[in-house]
């Protein structure tokens, strides 16, 4: 059988194979688009906008988490499984801080909550960053020159430890996260509305992403990060403090994940200790979908997954959502082996 396979491969090789593969891909894509478009037309425009806004907001949260995965992977080639749990930690810490800042469900939900929310946000993000940098220092740095899978296993162990600590802290229950954002909807005319929550979530995620992009592209530390990601030894020879740069990467990744946790809490109003497991898996999928190591790619991947999930939940059977997300991932990697925006880089 294998002989036959090899022969087939020999016949259909090189450019022809790529062309056939791309053609098949395009046909599949066209069929899917037609089916989806037909469903959308049946349910009307207002519903479509509502679902789209929900998907983009959901995707923006995944994108925030995905950025941390992609940055860490870009710089030390490690799938940081604990990252999803840092995201959950953000939701848990902010939830615990709320009484101290006088925030509770049903209180004045206006501009007055902006300042305490900002305070909670900053403290939570710093604490998450501290945890992530500590994890890097204790569990990953000693293994930087060990076989790569050893570091992967410690990452899984660290994920289990974080989940376990949160489990010990708050138990196995779903925790209610106060619904502080207004439930009002903004009318865009013609029956089309968009929720204030959606706007807040998308805007705050967007601000964080723009800040990150500016930081990585403009600042000196950002330049050091890019250099370290490209060639660690050469960067070291140029006088870059590798340990500091890697720690800074973990710091920034955790800041974004912590912010993502808070936003998730405000948007979905329910968190539990094992939230980060699935969320992390999907966020990592988003990072790979966009091209791992690529910051705009992670954002794009997150948005795509959010939109696909919400469309499938709304128009098709929701129990298949995750199946489709991972099927799209496999399909994208088959047709574009380096992700949507990834570039072909030589193996290190």
């Amino acid at each position, binding site marked *: 059988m*294998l002989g036959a*396979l*090899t022969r087939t*491969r020999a016949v259909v090789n090189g450019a022809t194979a790529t062309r056939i593969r791309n053609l098949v891909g395009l046909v599949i894509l066209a069929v899917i688009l037609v089916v989806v478009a037909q469903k959308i037309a049946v349910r009307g425009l207002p519903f479509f906008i509502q679902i789209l806004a929900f998907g983009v907001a959901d995707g923006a949260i995944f994108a925030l988490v995905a950025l941390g995965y992609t940055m860490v*992977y870009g710089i030390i*080639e490690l*799938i940081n499984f604990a990252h999803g749990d840092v995201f959950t930690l953000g939701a848990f810490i902010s939830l615990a801080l709320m009484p101290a800042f006088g925030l509770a469900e049903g209180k004045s939900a206006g501009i007055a909550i902006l300042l305490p929310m900002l305070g909670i946000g900053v403290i939570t993000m710093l604490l998450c960053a501290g945890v992530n940098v500590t994890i890097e220092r204790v*569990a990953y740095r*000693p*293994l930087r*020159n*060990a*076989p790569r*899978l*050893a*570091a*992967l*296993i*410690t990452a*899984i*162990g*660290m*994920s*289990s*430890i*974080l*989940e*376990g*600590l949160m*489990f*010990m802290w708050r138990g196995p229950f779903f925790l209610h996260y106060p619904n502080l954002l207004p439930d009002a909807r903004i009318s865009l005319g013609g029956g089309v509305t968009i929720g204030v929550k959606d706007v807040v979530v998308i805007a705050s995620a967007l601000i964080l992403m723009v800040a990150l992009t500016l930081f990585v592209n403009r600042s000196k530390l950002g330049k050091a990060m890019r250099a370290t990601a490209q060639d660690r030894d050469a960067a070291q020879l140029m006088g870059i403090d590798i340990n500091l740069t890697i720690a800074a990467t973990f710091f920034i990744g955790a800041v974004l994940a912590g912010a993502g946790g808070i936003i998730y809490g405000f948007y979905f109003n329910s968190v539990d200790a094992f939230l980060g*497991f699935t969320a992390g*898996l999907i966020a*990592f*999928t988003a990072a*790979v979908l966009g091209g*791992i190591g690529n910051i705009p790619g992670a954002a794009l991947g997150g948005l795509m997954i959010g939109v696909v999930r919400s469309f499938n939940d709304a128009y098709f*059977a929701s*129990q*298949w959502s*995750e*199946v489709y997300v*991972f*099927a799209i*991932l*496999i399909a994208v*990697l*088959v047709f574009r*082996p*380096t*992700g949507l925006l990834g570039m072909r880089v030589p*193996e290190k």
Partner: protein
Amino acid sequence: MSRLSQLVHENRQNPNAIAYAAMLLFAIVFPPVAQFTTGGNGDFLVSLAADGGVFVLMAIGLNVVVGFAGLLDLGYAAFFAIGAYTYGILASNQLISSPLGHGVHIPFWIALFVAMFVAAGAGALLGFPTLRLRGDYLAIVTLGFGEIVPRFFRNLGTISGGVNGITALDAPSLPGWLNGPWVGQALAITNDFKFTSGNPTAYYVLMVMLLILSVILVNNLYQSRLGRAWMAVREDEVAAAAMGVNTTTIKLLAFGIGAATSGFAGSFYGAKLSIVSPENFGFIVSVTVLSMVVLGGMGNIPGAMLGAMVLYYILFKFLPDAPAQASSIFSSLGLDVIAKPQPNGWPGIGEEIARAKFVIFGLILVLIMLLRPQGLLPSRVREQELTHKATEEAVFDLGAAS
């Protein structure tokens, strides 16, 4: 006899040979010792050991993929699920409610191999378009596949039994010509060799035989031309291709053999538990098996087996028992303040340990990796590579300092 003593003498220094001998000895003495120490109530332990064998078998299979060929597989449980479901569908009344109209009951011994080939086929099907991906992209594809398969079975409805899975799977039975005069007679260890839920020893013996068979097969493969090709691909794919190794076929074979072993394990698992449910094949299973292989020593068969046994013991015996054990220890020391729940909110040491099980498991993984990144019983080649790299870097550092 002299040949045996010569064999022993030659392998006295070989850690792998010692590990094989120790494991074989352990496998033989375990059931009687378990029965003896618990006063005849050791069926529970033997059953647990037979379930543990499933993980050992999977570790052997994943070691081929990850350890030999160097392909990171994060969705290994998918093939386990495919094996288990294949057996479930082929050996139960499940298909009565399907268009086929009546249940299929293929004997275990045939279904075992059918499940193996189905799993291997799924492995080839997944591997064929994706094995040209490099490094971690392949890992993510397997991860995605591992997430898809259990959800697929969960959503498939009548064919796979949906959320409830398939129940009442056929138990294996020995063929008639083997049901000799001893069946029903009182043998020393076990009364009869029938595969019933009350007699885990039969499953245990079957598992040990499957393990021995797999070890022999995989070890032969490892020492063959194919095994050397795997190593070549693992170390440097471009160089291996330049030397005339057909890397795609080689990787596909590693993938398929790994999947086949997992399918093997899956059908045994289904037959023993008599139930397959989509909840049993999540990402956590893939990660556990991968941890077993890395923990034991990648690329070394006895290492992977040892890692599987150690981690299985920790996960399924040590951690579940720890709360009661700790509680009774502190009670016997007279420290009821620690052992019993207190009015000030302390829930008792047992309860506290039960709550901390995730933390303990994570700490064990992290500590073993930090203290022994090469694994408990690493392959000699790998160990040499590691020390070689360390010397190389030491020289580099020296040069940089001067």
